[in-house]
């Protein structure tokens, strides 16, 4: 999966590239409007991660160019500006999703995956990890062949973990992913605690062992219990 990262802040761009590369994306980067424009004209991308405020042009113009070229690339807008007008303009122009800074890297990755799934209706509508199989089309979950009934939130959290196997996910990132921006970071533990406890229990009861490891003070990690 080829992703173009258009972001003018070198530090942020580097972090995105590194994180997404580890998550299995092939990343290319552009530091400004001109560079990004050249790249989208020359190459095909599966997705474009687009900062709206660039030093040499408007991100929205790049989005227009992509749409005018009938590009198949999914577009995820990243911006510091949480002005509703920009957001609406971006979505109207055909952006697939929108994230405001600061964001969780895991969330960027998960949203990119979601965009790509929607765009391409990927050939493998199943996600697998160490015996856990999730059918994205029917939302059926099995652990070692045993069906597991999950609530919607538990399903969302599990998918989030499956998108980042082995990664430490903070409780804030988990809470924000499942409940949206309205969650106060202070309460994130209260939000996810019960759901994670039940999810963990259900996976274990299906004979899966301890999939979710608690990282002290930080969050949780999806690990292969047999590894």
């Amino acid at each position: 999966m080829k992703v173009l990262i258009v972001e003018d802040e070198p530090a942020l761009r580097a972090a995105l590239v590194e994180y997404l590369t580890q998550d299995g994306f092939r990343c290319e980067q552009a530091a400004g409007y001109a560079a990004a424009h050249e790249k989208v004209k020359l190459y095909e991308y599966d997705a474009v991660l687009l900062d709206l405020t660039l030093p040499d042009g408007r991100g929205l113009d790049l989005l227009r160019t992509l749409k005018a070229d009938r590009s198949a690339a999914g577009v995820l807008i990243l911006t510091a500006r949480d002005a509703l007008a920009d957001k609406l303009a971006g979505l109207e122009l055909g952006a697939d999703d929108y994230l405001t800074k600061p964001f969780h890297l895991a969330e960027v990755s998960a949203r990119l995956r979601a965009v790509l799934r929607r765009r391409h209706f990927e050939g493998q509508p199943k996600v697998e990890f160490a015996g856990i199989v999730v059918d994205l089309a029917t939302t059926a979950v099995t652990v070692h062949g045993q069906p597991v009934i999950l609530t919607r939130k538990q399903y969302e959290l599990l998918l989030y973990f499956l998108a980042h196997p082995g990664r430490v996910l903070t409780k804030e990132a988990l809470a924000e992913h499942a409940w949206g921006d309205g969650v106060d970071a202070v309460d994130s533990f209260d939000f996810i605690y019960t759901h994670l406890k039940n999810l963990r229990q259900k996976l274990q009861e299906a004979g899966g062992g301890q999939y979710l490891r608690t990282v002290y003070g930080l969050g949780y990690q999806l690990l292969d219990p047999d590894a």
Partner: protein
Amino acid sequence: MKLLATTTRYYLLLTAGLFMVASVLLYLGLDWALRSEVEEQLVNRELYLRALVARGRPLPATPFAYQLDRRPRPRALGFSDTLLLDPLEQEMVPYRELTFQLRPGDPAGALEWITLRKSLVETEDVLGVVLGVMLGVLALLLAGVVTLNRWLARRVWKPFQHTLAALRAYDLHRHQPLGLPTPAIEEFAELNQALNQLSQRLVADYESLREFTENAAHETQTPLAIIQAKLEQLLQAPVLQEDEQLTTLLSDALGGTQRLSRLHQSLTLLTRLENHQFAPTQAVPVYLDQVLRDRVALLEPLLEARQLTLTLHADLPLPPLTLHPGLADSLLQNLLHNAIKHNHPGGRVDVLLNRRMLEISNTGPALSVDPAQFFERFRKHNAASDSPGLGLSIAQHICSYYGFGIEYAYAQAGTRHTLRVQFC
């Protein structure tokens, strides 16, 4: 009191005083002049009589005895005043009299005291007329001053009234300077010029403040995003798995970043509310009961974790309110969150929604702060709390943005807290 009424009052006092003094002086002056005239006439008559007597002619007889009184006995000489009865009108009439000695007939004749009298009634009439005219003129003048000022108020003060109306209607959020005209009257022209300059400065300052807010928001969000991204990268470092101390450090740093980011979002929202930067075109009909249900559903895990019972009563059907959807959501979120945060385990949150108001009441420990400071920024019920204490301030600003009333009440010895939003 109006400026004109004040000046008119002083005008009236001054003119009335001046007229009184003038009337007294005029009265005294006229009185003196008329008496002198009467005395001069009396003296002339005396001289005439003496001349007659000197030529050996007898004193003439007058038709009115009181005008020439001849007495053989001595009397006080010189001028004096007296009152005599007017037989016709049966009233006492003032006279001026002059008494002198004379030997009528022959030079060796008996000495006689002659008294000449002249009526002062005419002079009193003159004085009366004069005073009457003066008072009449005074009354006319006063009425004139009042009418003139009324007229001036309407005509000369018109530019001032215009300026005042323009100032009252002035709204900084339209980003327009005042643009007052330059009237013919110099003082008003100067006033308008000064006000125009003032409004231009205000607009410029407001614009730069707005730009600053926007830029500050943009410029701080980016470094924050970098910090957060870098910390999350650090999270994946294998060394963390072994080192618990490092994990704690990282956890604290991440927590701090999150709080800063929240704080920043809240302050930006408050600033945008204060600057009225939510375009009315973005407002849509919002069914508050739906938003409320969505919000409550989202907060379910939090209620569960705190073992709180939430009841929701909505008087359906409710008419939609025209609101900015993000603001409606933020208002409900902040109010509900407040009710959950300041509760005790096993407590209650009761939500009541009808056409007129939204009422959210919760159990909770008694307040330690003055309810009057309830909506102030950074006002925390508990100093150790992680929350920046902006939630209720945001709720209040959203309410005032839409002209809703918001009030706080507590009952049952301060353990039942109620926040009420009045929609009309």
